[in-house]
């Protein structure tokens, strides 16, 4: 598999580490339902057959966390962007 890192260009899979579904929304630890919300956050994952936004870490390159949309059926990569949103602190 090849991932096109926005900073480094297209690189071999060996440079990246996989984490899982992207769009991590860490729950509010002070909310009433925090334990249940954190349980879901840590353990429950979408596992679709089809495109899935995932987090990949370019540890063998620029150390960016990437949001990669990969089709789980055939490893086609539909898009790659930095996980850190635009406008965040640079």
């Amino acid at each position: 598999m090849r991932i096109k890192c926005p900073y480094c260009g297209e690189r071999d899979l060996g440079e990246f580490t996989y984490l899982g579904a992207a769009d991590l929304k860490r729950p509010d630890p002070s909310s009433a339902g925090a334990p249940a919300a954190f349980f879901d956050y840590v353990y429950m994952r979408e596992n679709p057959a089809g495109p899935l936004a995932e987090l990949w870490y370019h540890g063998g390159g620029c150390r960016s966390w990437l949001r990669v949309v990969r089709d789980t059926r055939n490893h086609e990569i539909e898009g790659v962007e930095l996980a850190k949103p635009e406008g965040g602190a640079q």
Partner: protein
Amino acid sequence: MTSPETSQEPFRLTTGGVIDRKRTLRFTFDGENYTGHPGDTLASALLANGERLVGRSFKYHRPRGIFSAGSEEPNALVELRTGARREPNTRATMVELYDGLEAASQNRWPSLKFDVQSINGLLSPFFGAGFYYKTFMWPAEFWKLVYEPLIRRSAGLGRAATETDPDHYEKAFAHCDVLVIGSGPAGLMAALTAARSGARVILAEEDFMFGGRLLSERLAIDGKPARDWPRAVLAELRSLDTVRLMPRTAIYGVYDGGTYGAVERVADHLPVPPEHRPRQRSWRIVAKRAVLASGAIERGITFSGNDLPGITLGSAVRSYLNRFGVAPGRRAIVFTTSDDGWATARDLAANGVAVAAVVDPRKEGIETKGAGPWPVFLGAEVKQAQGGQKLRSVIVRDDRGLETEIACDLLAVSNGWNPTLHLSCHLGGKPVWHEALSAFIPGSVPKGIAVGGAAAGHLTLAEALQDGARLGAEAASDTGFAAATAPANPAVGREETALSVPLWRVHGGRGAAFVDLQNDVTAKDIELAFQEGYGASEHVKRYTTLGMGTDQGKTANVTALGVLSELTGQPIPAIGTTGFRPPYTPITWGALAGHHRGKDFRPKRLPPSHAWAEENGAVFADAGLWLRAQWYQRPGETLQRSIAREAAAVRLSVGVCDVSTLGKIDIQGPDAATLLDRVYTNKFSTLKVGRTRYGLMLREDGFAMDDGTTARLGEQHFIMTTTTANAGKVMQHLELCRQVLWPDLDVRLVSVSDHWAQYAVAGPRSRDVLAKLVDAPFDISNEGFPRMAAGELTICGGVPARLFRVSFSGELAYEIAVPAHYGDAAIRALMQAGAEYGITPYGTEALNALRIEKGHVGGPEINGQTTARDLGLAGMVSGDKDCVGRVLAERPALLDPARPILVGVKPIDPSQALTAGSHFIPVGAAATAANDQGYLTSVAFSPVLGQDIGIGFLARGRERMGERIRAVDLLRGHDVECVVTSPIFYDPEGERTRA
């Protein structure tokens, strides 16, 4: 027919072939001397010398010869080379001849011509499909002791070398716009067209010679022999620096994103690889587009005795005649279901081989093809082949059922072609049945690959050239290169179609009729499998082993489906096909491993003091990728004594240890403290500049992830240390926190693990040693630089350094860091400065003993299954802030008082030894899982206490101080009664670090 110059090669033709007749190569086969020429394969050279019998079959030990002229060879498997370079199961058809080659037949005893186990062949009625499953069933213990060793000895192929492979293998990457796989007419045309447009082209050819079938056929291109056409094309390709020609390179796998696996046989055609050259090179080729022009493989026919040496594919016969200048026999019969066979007959006759008959089961539409002075049997079949160790005659059954025995020593079999579509299936592509071709052709093809020529089922030269030109142009334009001067479409002569009316099986013969030659699977075996309920193609494969082995059924799979089709009355597409997975062709472990073997299995990281440590008797141990000094042996010293000496030096005077392997992360920015507050359980925003704090970080699931000290060097500047093992993981975690979880934080990280050499200087005299090195006016007195102080200073007259007053040993101690290139100088300076105090280097063993005496947790305790509470560090979880892992750490089960918690243990009998990994069992209870109350994680001999001590996790441990418990290690046979203690064995108040 034989030339005087090559009289030792009685079957060598006087002219023709793309071999270098001026040079003679000598080789041996089973100890006999033979000759051949550059351009020969081992197979062609053996045939030139009249050797037909080259091996014994897998199961029945039947005599076997050379069936093909290529990668698909099922029979002619030989052991190549001797000693440490001995390689079993090499295909004689793929072995390029070199001077001094030594080969041996395999799977025979005592000799190839007289093999004791060929009796298996006579017993074949009993050795049918599923024989092993049915016979060696009971008693069960017999399987391991008797049956399996017996079967392993008698079945099987060659012997692997038992010595270490002396050669090198390497891995390489290549990138291109267009990868062309195969260099027949389609491949060459595709490569030329793409290359002329300016695209970067790689042309990979499994053979040592480019040209594919062009080398083996008597065809014409532009009025000249087609065999010469590749030369001009290759000359042009070679002149372009955007083209890489890769002969002897098999593309064995297709992977995601246009990645292709290939093995280049760099020096397999040489007796020994030249110095500094690898034997083989494993390539990962990344190509934007690929043209698969891998050709096609001819099929055989299943009839009785069809495995005799002398029975050869018609296409291979033409290869031996036209490419190698070898007559594979003197008197040939052609058995063909396609017009290809008629070309074989003509080529044989043209080279002076007597054609005794052409047998074609077809009756219609072929009358005009029979131009030749030989008897023709239409609507006929070869019912049976006869001979001992080689073919002697065949029985032809004509269209009226009359049988004629005809003497011959060569039977050329043609039964249509199977496109070599394997690579098109590697990403899940399914082949589809093509009725007119009676063959599977590529169906859905992986993105970026286009299939052309015979691989796509386009079997004529004209089609191959057209496909190549079209696909080469498309691939180039897809990758952004405009078509330049397209090569003119070469004119080809009239061609026969290679369409066949395949004949899968001839009935009525006496003796075994083989479908899969390599696995000795007969038509009867398939029949039996079908009768016993294993009629689905995947079941047949597993029940009979059809299609397994080094050839992966390249000549067998489709024929087997044909046989099944007859049995079931179902058409082949309804039966289905088996898919193909990588590798396309056998690849060696050496090529896959590359340089990663032995001590080079992983990269090695050396701490800055390594050279100095080597000079000083260090014994090294692996710590992840690091090679760390484990202990510093003095002459005659045991490990135990060395540890005691090193530890005593730390307790009594001063020791020094390289701790550069710890991860070091430089953290800067306005929100640096906030980030640390969120990743550590304890607070760092309150840490004052110039101070250090021990921190514990959790995973989000509440379990401990790592620990270490972090110093604040400035308002917005921290330097974090991690454990050696988790340096990368913590970095990744911090980046996740910073970039993904809290992208609004304004903070930056950089790993500086390799930038700083860091030494722990520990012991009551440590300050005295450092004071000699630290430049004025820096003050490291107890008042000026108290416990947990941190600061930047200079040493030795201006060398920048960082000093941290932290202690892992429990003594007054410091860690001093200098830029890594000063690391060697620093250890020497420290040793010199400490000489008057007897400064002693200590290794990881003493470091471990010292920390266990202090009850400091390490890797064995932070093992992914323990929480802050389990580690006895509940107090470090700050109550008034959130951090990663805090919420889930408070799950009820993790707070259960019965959960094991960190304790110390020491044997009641001080002479008894402890082993890490022992489980805690109550005194008097059985050592069962039900009575398991925890486990021992770290043990050491404590020089201070003069006995073994350990720390581990014991259920309700904190309430059980003074109780007795057994540390039981059933694996190593230890059962030691211990007393439960505090995990801190030494200086529980920590007074010594404050001195």
